[in-house]
């Protein structure tokens, strides 16, 4: 079973995983996922984030690197730089930082 970091959970430190991770709680530190990462609405991530793909509904403060794609959904908030092959920013997403699409 993949990882679900639920609403009430706070992790302070370094998190790594080789499979899918869903964050609905709080992660501070570093988050590295070799697989799809979903950060749900209401989740708070204050960390540098690495993943195959990122679907962001919550909030990230930190730099994001994805080997495949990054999707900033409506209502999400990202303060930090994005490095990914494909990036979408939905209407209603809040983003401050730079995008590097590795061209």
């Amino acid at each position: 079973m993949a990882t679900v970091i639920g609403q009430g959970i706070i992790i302070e430190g370094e998190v790594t995983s080789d499979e899918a991770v869903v964050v609905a709680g709080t992660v501070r530190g570093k988050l590295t996922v070799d697989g799809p990462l979903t950060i749900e609405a209401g989740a708070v991530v204050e960390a540098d984030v690495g993943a195959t793909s990122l679907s962001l509904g919550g909030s990230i403060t930190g730099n994001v690197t994805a080997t495949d794609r990054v999707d900033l959904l409506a209502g999400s908030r990202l303060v930090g730089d994005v490095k990914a092959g494909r990036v979408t920013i939905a209407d209603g997403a809040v983003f401050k930082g730079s995008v590097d699409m590795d061209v």
Partner: protein
Amino acid sequence: MPAKRGTSSISDANVLGKSLRVRGRLSGEGDLRIEGEIEGEVRVSGALELCDGGSVSGNVAARSVMIEGSLTGDVAAEGAVLIRAGARVTGNMNGAEVSLEEGAAFTGRIEADFELPDGLAGGGAGPRGRRAR
């Protein structure tokens, strides 16, 4: 009905999967199931399950604790601490009740600080005066 290994009675809201590694501190509300590896302190308000294959190096606090995997650290539980067969545990267990299954490897102290008030008669503990001492 024998309890099947790996099945769990707790909610699936918080699961730290097999390949997950955490170095740091984890705290929060609700139940937590750990199948991965944690180096650091774990503190949850609900039930904690450390599954077969999972490991924790650090102190653990929860309402109740069930261990099938490997733990190096102390346990503080308000309720029951259950160390299942196959578990490897090094540390001090502190809970209202602590049970240790045959086949578990355990090194440490067990402190079950239960209270038996005089008014307990009529509860589940049987008639007063028949308690083995």
